[in-house]
């Protein structure tokens, strides 16, 4: 690994948490699927990198960060995990097991930044006191980004330089059955990502579609493309909505009153000589927010300074005296946190209120604050459900499904050596997620401005969001079920003796009746466990169990780390079974290695 390559990887990790990608970093570079492709490009093996990134992404399929919580640093797991696996010659399934502790380690970067950045919010307060609009904008971006750059770049640069060698040495020193356990874990751990995502969408009338997706994929022998399954999903979603009659609009007591409430907008009557905002001002504000909403994310104010920064084009246009400017900046520097795309209805409505206020309407600080503080919670509830728990996981499932290997589930684990990654997976994912997220953000912002609070209640009451979520739930379950069939791999090696014949329970009993039933059972059990146990305990349990299960209790252990042929004769609990003495079919166990550095026979 050259210095330049390590520096590019470290830069990529910084960018994944930075504001510089129009606020899309969280949906793009932050995800291991995308990081895998980019690390692959930097190291000259894009297809292999994509495969590793896709593998690492699966356990994080259901990742959400809300209200300042941060269960795992997914970007750290993706960028560093792919680097170590690719440069250290680890196979993609084992990379999953290596990436998870990295994800936990990476949360230190987040906590450090969230704690320290609160200081910069106070610096912004000082600038606001001096009615310094540019100063507030500066404090929202520059100090926090310098801090973030240092604490992101340095550790990842050092890990990229030294990590691969270190991990490769460690793996070389470990007994083969141990590193084999990591591969087994790579087949089991994806169940967590599937189950975490199921918590969002596996419910109600959408549940059967998960099983349909699973069965479609297994009965096609693993050959059905996820794109085809997604296309079927769209058709089924349409049928489902049609035949269930959609969803009746939700009614509340005050429905009529609110719906007819006057739309908050300035008109020439209320402000004859007024200060008016142009479409350009409102757009500039939206663009500022899109870039910098999380530039100075911190525990004290969360998006507080980001909100004030987004209001700077508005404040500059509407207010002229230092007193007005100071008051407006301070008004918007307080604690604020919402989902930063759908939540834009709040900003739009607040801009409309500011415009009226600047034109003499009797709107005091309390009125504006109550719109912000009253709406930010409920709106982020809907926004997170929409973007983080529905759109992102479904598109990721699709992207991972496309990226994740050409091997079929029936022969070797999908992320095992021999599978080939498809760079179209991350590319399609990024294109779709960017258009949808930016689209939601733009419409919410503009409608919030033009129609004010009425837009919020009208939209909620119309049932549109419920319909979108229901339709997405159908599509999501179908894709998720197929992805579960594709990435969750569980083999059972032991045999039972019946009338003298050695029968493997999986190969001879279960799979002929219901292919992949073990993997499906594992996913359902994990889903059930998640209601009772924290995901971290399940992760730790699965990892330990996989390694123990790889121990060759029943016969000779593996001879070569990338050689699946030893599985031809049962040696441990969780290996693919084949009768002793029968050589594996050549196509079932290709010897290709994921990177040129791989494949070290003892």
């Amino acid at each position, binding site marked *: 690994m050259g210095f330049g390559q390590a520096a590019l990887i470290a830069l990529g990790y910084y960018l994944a948490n930075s504001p510089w990608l129009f606020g899309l970093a969280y949906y793009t570079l932050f995800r291991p699927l995308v990081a895998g492709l980019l690390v692959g490009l930097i190291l000259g093996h894009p297809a292999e990198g994509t495969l590793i990134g896709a593998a690492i992404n699966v356990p994080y399929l259901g990742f959400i960060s809300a209200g300042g919580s941060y269960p795992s640093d997914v970007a750290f797991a993706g960028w560093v995990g792919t680097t170590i696996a690719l440069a250290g010659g680890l196979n993609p399934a084992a990379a999953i097991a290596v990436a998870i502790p990295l994800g936990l380690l990476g949360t230190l970067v987040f906590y450090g930044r969230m704690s320290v950045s609160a200081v910069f919010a106070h610096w912004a307060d000082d600038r606001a006191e001096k009615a310094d609009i540019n100063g507030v904008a500066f404090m929202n971006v520059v100090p926090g980004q310098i801090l973030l750059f240092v604490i992101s770049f340095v550790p990842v640069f050092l890990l990229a330089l030294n990590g691969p060698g270190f991990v490769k040495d460690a793996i070389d020193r470990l007994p083969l059955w141990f590193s084999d356990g990591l591969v087994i874990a790579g087949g089991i751990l994806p169940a967590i990502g599937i189950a975490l995502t199921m918590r969002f969408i596996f419910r109600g009338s959408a549940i059967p579609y998960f099983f349909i997706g699973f069965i479609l994929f297994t009965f096609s022998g693993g050959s059905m493309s996820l794109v085809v399954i997604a296309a079927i999903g769209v058709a089924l979603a349409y049928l489902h909505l049609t035949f269930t009659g959609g969803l009746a609009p939700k009614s509340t007591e005050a429905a009529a009153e609110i719906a007819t409430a006057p739309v908050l907008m300035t008109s020439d009557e209320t402000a004859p000589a007024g200060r008016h905002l142009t479409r350009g001002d409102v757009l500039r504000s939206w663009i500022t927010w899109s870039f910098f909403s999380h530039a100075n994310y911190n525990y*004290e104010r969360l998006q507080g300074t980001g909100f004030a920064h987004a209001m700077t084009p508005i404040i500059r246009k509407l207010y002229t005296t230092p007193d007005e400017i100071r008051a407006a900046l301070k008004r918007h520097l307080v604690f604020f946190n919402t989902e930063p795309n759908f939540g834009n209805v709040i900003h739009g409505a607040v801009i409309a209120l500011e415009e009226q206020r600047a034109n003499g309407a009797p709107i005091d600080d309390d009125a504006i604050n109550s719109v912000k503080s009253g709406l930010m919670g409920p709106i982020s509830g809907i926004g997170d459900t929409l973007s983080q728990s529905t759109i992102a996981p479904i598109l990721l499932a699709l992207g991972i499904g496309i990226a994740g290997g050409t091997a079929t589930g029936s022969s070797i684990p999908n992320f095992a050596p021999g599978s080939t990654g498809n760079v179209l997976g991350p590319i399609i994912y990024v294109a779709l997620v960017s258009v949808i997220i930016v689209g939601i953000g733009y419409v919410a912002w503009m409608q919030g401005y033009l129609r004010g609070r009425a837009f919020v*209640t009208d939209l909620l009451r119309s049932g549109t969001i419920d319909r979108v979520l229901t339709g997405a739930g159908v599509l999501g379950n179908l894709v998720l079920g197929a992805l579960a069939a594709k990435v969750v791999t569980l083999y059972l090696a032991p045999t039972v003796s019946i009338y003298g014949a050695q029968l493997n329970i999986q190969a001879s009993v279960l799979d002929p009746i219901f292919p992949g039933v073990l993997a499906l059972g594992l996913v359902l059990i994990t889903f059930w466990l998640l209601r009772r146990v924290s995901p971290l305990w399940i992760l730790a349990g699965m990892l330990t169990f996989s390694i123990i299960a790889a121990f060759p209790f029943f016969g000779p252990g593996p001879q070569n780390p990338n050689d699946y042929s030893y599985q031809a004769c049962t040696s441990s609990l969780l290996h693919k079974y084949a009768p002793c003495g029968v050589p594996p079919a050549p196509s079932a166990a290709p010897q290709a290695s994921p990177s040129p550095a791989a494949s070290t026979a003892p």
Partner: protein
Amino acid sequence: MSLRLVRIDDRLIHGQVVAGWLRALGARRIVIVDDATARDEFLRDVLTLAAPSDVPVEVLNIADGAIRCIELAASPEPVFVLARSPRTVLGLRQAGVPIEVVDLGGMGSGPGRKRLHKTISISPDELAELRELERLGTRVEIQIVADDRPIPFRSLDSTH
């Protein structure tokens, strides 16, 4: 019987609340107790609409909320009670609502507020109110999302 959990969150219904806590508690009903919110028709409406469509939301002031909570505490149906401030919860407790645990889930910062833990900041008044709640036999814990391990308030209070 008593209410298993009352959550204090200045954003009331939001992402994790909807997604995580309803599931963790197995609750199919949300009761929001807050005087100012109960007066505001628009916010009442938004909160009602923001919850999942099969989860009924009631927005009540402290007086009505206390009556309703006593009623609900006596029934076996799990219910998720949300309030904006410790004062509201203390008001409920003093009105005779049996509350097992108060969860501090989100209390933003502001002038005169001291950071206790991550996104939890409290004012001196709130500190006194929380201590009073503990004195009345209600456990106070910090648990921002349902997957977090709860941190006893007392362990952080002693360092104050």
